[in-house]
């Protein structure tokens, strides 16, 4: 057992990044881990495939998509978009403050961001149950199939993101020296969730 210890990296790669960040640097800086960016780009590509397939089905049955689209609640869609934008704003501010050492304020902003994320989930649950109550379900037609699929897979990303925000909050609350790289990594994921929603909102709710 003991022979395994000495082979471990001395302090972990993340702390090395932080100390690098601490000294003033004019050079360009990759926010968060490179591997998270690999994930984000791959996820964006996967979603692009969903969006493209959605667009094809949409033009193949444009009229039906428009009629079904009309059954959506535009107000709830707008509310959810504003919630996620606000949440993203809070998290972006939080990273900025954490970098400047204002840890307590940064933690409060993470709480705000999580609250907006949770509100998004609540609104989504209400919206879905309302639609199901009106007998618009996953198998109703192709539009609702895509509606539930796109918003559903996005919602799963939101759940994962809320978990990540929790870890960020814990990092800010408990670590003596919060790892900025870790916060940036989590924030990158959360902004991606926001970004994907902006496109889903335009494609599913707004476009005609």
């Amino acid at each position, binding site marked *: 057992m003991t022979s395994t210890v000495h082979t471990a990296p001395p302090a972990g790669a993340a702390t090395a990044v932080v100390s690098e960040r601490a000294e003033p640097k004019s050079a*360009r*800086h*990759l*926010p968060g881990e490179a591997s998270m*960016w690999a994930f984000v*780009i791959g996820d*964006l*590509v996967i979603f*692009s495939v969903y*969006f*493209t397939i959605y*667009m*094809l089905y949409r*033009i193949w049955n*444009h009229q039906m998509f*428009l*009629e079904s*689209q*009309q059954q959506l609640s*535009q107000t709830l*869609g*707008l509310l959810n*978009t*504003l919630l996620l*934008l*606000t949440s*993203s*704003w809070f*998290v*972006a*501010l939080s990273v*900025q*403050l954490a970098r*400047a050492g*204002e840890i307590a304020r940064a933690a409060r902003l993470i709480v705000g961001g999580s609250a907006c994320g949770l509100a998004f989930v609540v609104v989504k649950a209400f919206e879905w149950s309302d639609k199901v109550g009106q007998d618009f379900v996953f198998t109703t037609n192709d539009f609702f199939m895509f509606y539930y699929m796109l918003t559903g897979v996005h919602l799963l990303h939101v759940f994962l993101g809320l978990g990540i925000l929790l870890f960020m909050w814990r990092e800010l609350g408990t670590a003596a020296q919060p790892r900025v790289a870790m916060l*940036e990594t989590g*924030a*990158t994921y959360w*902004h*991606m969730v*926001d*970004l994907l929603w*902006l*496109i889903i*909102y*335009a*494609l599913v*709710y*707004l*476009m*005609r």
Partner: protein
Amino acid sequence: MISIRRNKLTLIWLLLCALTVASYLAATKLEGATYFVSAPITTGVLIAALIKSRFVMHHFMELRAAPSWLGGICDGWLVVLFGVIFVVYWSAI
């Protein structure tokens, strides 16, 4: 102490919200109660979405300070995705 009120991120957030509300109004209030195919509305909301996406990536995800190859990849992705969406949409009208 960093000010939130006089912060570039806050300005960006306000712009994003304004664009969102504008697209919402355009899509729901411009053309009456029944939805029909409308290239101007679609083009408008898609351009708004493109601008918003770019803002989120550039300022929230901090691509403006990131190595330029990463910004290039992300901008390239936006161009390709919205290009495909536009082409598919216009091919049907």
